[in-house]
């Protein structure tokens, strides 16, 4: 009996994965994100409604979990992990099949749950709650819409699960429900929701009242879908006897990552007045820039370059991120700008050094705090002609130690033809000078990567316009700039390429950026350093020299 339940669970799991696969294929590439609104996806995983963007690219799995009967439902491809709910089946369901899931889930749920009460970033009590009352800065625009409908839907469909629903914001998962894509990545939203064909009396959200109500809720909802224990659902799951369940590791990884949270360190470099702080605020939809934080931020040009680092903890759909924005006021503003890149290079190398020291320590911390600069956004003034010598010098030097993403600042001063011409000129000059900006050609891993990255490479540098003010356009409130001749909408790709930049940095390539920093730039630094102090380090750590060299890339 148990075994057959297990089998059913496994098959449900497998199916959910399968379904997701198809969904992922329909998942739009990051470059066509226009219609997707990643923030809207709701995670249904019990692992506390957190959507975890497993892969940095668009190979996210949709969070849908469809029951076999629902396999035809298109699901939002994104939320790879949301599937967890489904498979996780952490519901406290009483359904027999569910029971097995439940047992699995419960434990994991408890683990997952623990951080959620503790999460109170930006005044948010719990991610789920925040979703509905939109307190998270991240969810500002897009999120508000999403939570409502799913909830309602959930409620309407299964009165039994009502307690659960109340708790969960994101009804997802059950196959029947509309699983929304996971938050990150361009989720395709909303798949159809189908109500479970039959009521599921077994589904008794006993756990719903637990702390993780939402976690529970999804489970409750999921369970019916998954379990189909008594074949009430139309077309019961097909048992798959060859399914092992290795892919459940993804779920575990996801859970762990959600617990740990992420770190991202972005550096902004450019002359004063190019809109760096505004762009940061626009990217993360909250006041994360130096100007917003430092009350005494005057606009005086400092005599030397300073490096100012400001950290924020932001949260979205249960995913926690420690975002650090490193600002460099004074860069390029003086009359004599020679060697103005040196303080910046020194800072970057210092971060690598700090990490290295932690790494070669004998008693290492379990999780080394990562303060390495993952990405450096370089602001090019929109002259419309070509790069300036200062730009070339800076980028040439820094592209070797950090990922550089060049952007054309204040692009609302260029017409479309001028923009294209300028971009072409810039790309030529970058090529001519051998400057490899992110995404670097040499780090493409396979053909798929190359294809996606080629598309991006054809578009860099992105022409961006930033704004933190909202205006009314066509009845909608949008971020933009209002001038006498029109209103420039920041998120409208016909106006500027901010949306592409945001997708690249946050929704699709964030993890990739971090990987390249840690596995390539950092390793290069490490090799160099260790070669310098080969003997010293080896002796200090009691490691024989030949071992050290074995660790080289």
């Amino acid at each position: 009996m148990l075994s057959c339940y297990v089998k059913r669970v496994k098959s449900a799991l497998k199916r959910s994965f399968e379904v997701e696969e198809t969904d992922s294929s329909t998942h739009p590439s990051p470059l066509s994100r226009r219609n997707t609104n990643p923030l809207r996806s709701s995670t249904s995983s019990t692992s506390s409604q957190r959507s975890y963007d497993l892969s940095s690219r668009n190979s996210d799995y949709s969070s849908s979990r469809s029951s076999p009967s629902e396999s035809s439902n298109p699901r939002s491809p994104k939320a790879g992990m949301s599937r967890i709910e489904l498979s996780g089946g952490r519901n406290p369901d009483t359904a027999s099949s569910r029971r097995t899931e439940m047992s699995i889930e419960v434990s994991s749920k408890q683990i997952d749950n623990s951080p959620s009460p503790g999460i109170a970033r930006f005044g948010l009590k719990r991610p789920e709650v925040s979703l509905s009352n939109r307190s998270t800065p991240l969810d500002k625009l897009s999120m508000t819409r999403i939570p409502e409908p799913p909830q309602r839907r959930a409620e309407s469909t299964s009165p039994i699960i009502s307690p659960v629903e109340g708790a969960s914001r994101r009804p997802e998962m059950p196959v029947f429900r509309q699983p929304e894509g996971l938050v990150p990545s361009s989720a395709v939203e909303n798949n159809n929701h189908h109500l479970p064909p039959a009521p599921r009396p077994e589904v008794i959200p006993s756990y719903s009242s637990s702390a993780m109500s939402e976690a529970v809720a999804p489970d409750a909802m999921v369970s019916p879908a998954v379990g189909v224990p008594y074949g009430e659902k139309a077309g019961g799951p097909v048992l798959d006897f060859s399914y092992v369940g290795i892919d459940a590791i993804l779920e575990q990884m996801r859970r762990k990552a959600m617990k740990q949270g992420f770190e991202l360190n972005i550096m902004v470099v450019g002359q004063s007045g190019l809109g760096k702080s505004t762009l940061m605020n626009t990217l993360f939809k909250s006041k994360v820039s130096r100007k917003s934080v430092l009350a005494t931020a005057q606009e005086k040009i400092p005599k030397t370059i300073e490096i100012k680092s400001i950290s924020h903890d932001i949260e979205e759909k249960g995913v926690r991120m420690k975002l650090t924005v490193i600002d460099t006021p004074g860069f390029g503003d003086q009359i004599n700008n020679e060697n103005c890149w040196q303080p910046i290079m020194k800072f970057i190398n210092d971060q690598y050094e700090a990490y290295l020291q932690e790494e070669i320590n004998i008693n290492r911390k379990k999780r080394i705090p990562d303060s390495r600069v993952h990405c450096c956004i370089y602001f090019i003034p929109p002259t419309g002609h070509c790069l300036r010598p200062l730009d070339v010098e800076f980028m040439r030097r820094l592209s070797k130690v950090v990922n550089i993403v060049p952007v054309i600042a204040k692009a609302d001063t260029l017409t479309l033809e001028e923009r294209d011409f300028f971009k072409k000129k810039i790309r030529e000059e970058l090529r001519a000078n051998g400057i490899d900006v992110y995404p670097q050609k040499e780090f493409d891993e396979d053909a798929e990567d190359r294809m996606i990255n080629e598309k991006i490479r054809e578009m860099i540098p992105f022409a961006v316009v930033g704004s933190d003010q909202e205006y009314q356009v066509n009845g909608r409130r949008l971020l933009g700039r209002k001038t006498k001749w029109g209103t420039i909408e920041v998120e409208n790709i016909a106006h500027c390429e901010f949306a592409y930049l945001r997708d690249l940095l946050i929704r699709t390539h964030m993890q990739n950026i971090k990987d390249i920093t840690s596995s390539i730039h950092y390793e290069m630094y490490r090799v160099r350093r260790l070669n310098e102090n080969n003997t010293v380090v080896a002796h200090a750590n009691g490691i024989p020299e030949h071992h050290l060299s074995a660790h080289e890339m």
Partner: protein
Amino acid sequence: MTTNIRYKSRIPVKTEDSAEEKQYVGFATLPNQVHRKSVKKGFDFTLMVAGESGMGKSTLVNSLFLTDLYKDRKLLNAEERINQTVEIIKHTVDIEEKGVKLKLTIVDTPGFGDAVNNNECWKPITDYIDQQFEQYFRDESGLNRKNIQDNRVHCCLYFIPPFGHGLRPVDVEFMKALHEKVNIIPLIAKADCLTPNEIKKLKDRIREEIDKFGIKVYQFPECDSDEDEEFKQLDKELKECTPFAVIGSNTVVEARGQRVRGRLYPWGIVEVENQSHCDFVKLRNMLIRSHMHDLKDVTCDVHYENYRAQCIQEMTSKLAQDNRMESPIPILPLSTPDAETEKLIKMKDEEQGVVGLSRA
């Protein structure tokens, strides 16, 4: 010019009033005669444009004078610019409108502010201006003064980038180096990237900083008290609007049913000649229609005279240094030494200038 118009109305008409005719001498027609003569002779005007590359200087000049002075321009890329020094390039064009001829010279300064190290990047510009003054000085003191070519720079349009929060160090240094040699008119370039609020803030900021650093930009002359109200109002508006936020365009687009000079964006069309979009019209009116002559006057009366006085003083002090008789009339070298030697002499004079001045 308003003056002309006003005087025109007073052209004596052969009236039947003989009594009045007896009182009337007739020199009120002098302005007309001057007017006629100058029209025949033609005017000349030298305008210098300075600012970083990519600020839209050439586009603005083309828009102002409705010409295409920069047809065959070749723009250098970043690599070629690294070691480039500031050049001075002159473009001359003859424009005629309603019988009035204007010989317009545009002095361009490519390379200004582009390098990584911009120390003293204004030096070639100040040297050029001094050279022109010196040339005129020499001509004026020479024996044959019939056809003096006036190449002195009458006005310098300085383009301030709109991206900053005010004046940058290089802007301040440039203007301080030039404000006593030429009329500086600061402009905010590429003003279409600013919203009206931002423009206002930036203008206030720049005005403050100009005061703070003691930069003497070109001031519009005060209105005479007998000017009419409308003129005074316009003048007041003009003064409050500085520095002008300008947008230039080489293309003609269709807007509101007419063809206008403008820039076409996905979100709207910027019209260069629309007063609510930018201050281009004000600048053009000021520069060409109302204050061109005043700019020339200030150059002749103030800047050139300053230069001349300084030059003479240096020469006198040099003579005094050499223990020669102090002659009231400056002794000009009859031969014309080449520019290099002249410069060396001047530099030496400057070094000893302080001592000389205290004695003189």
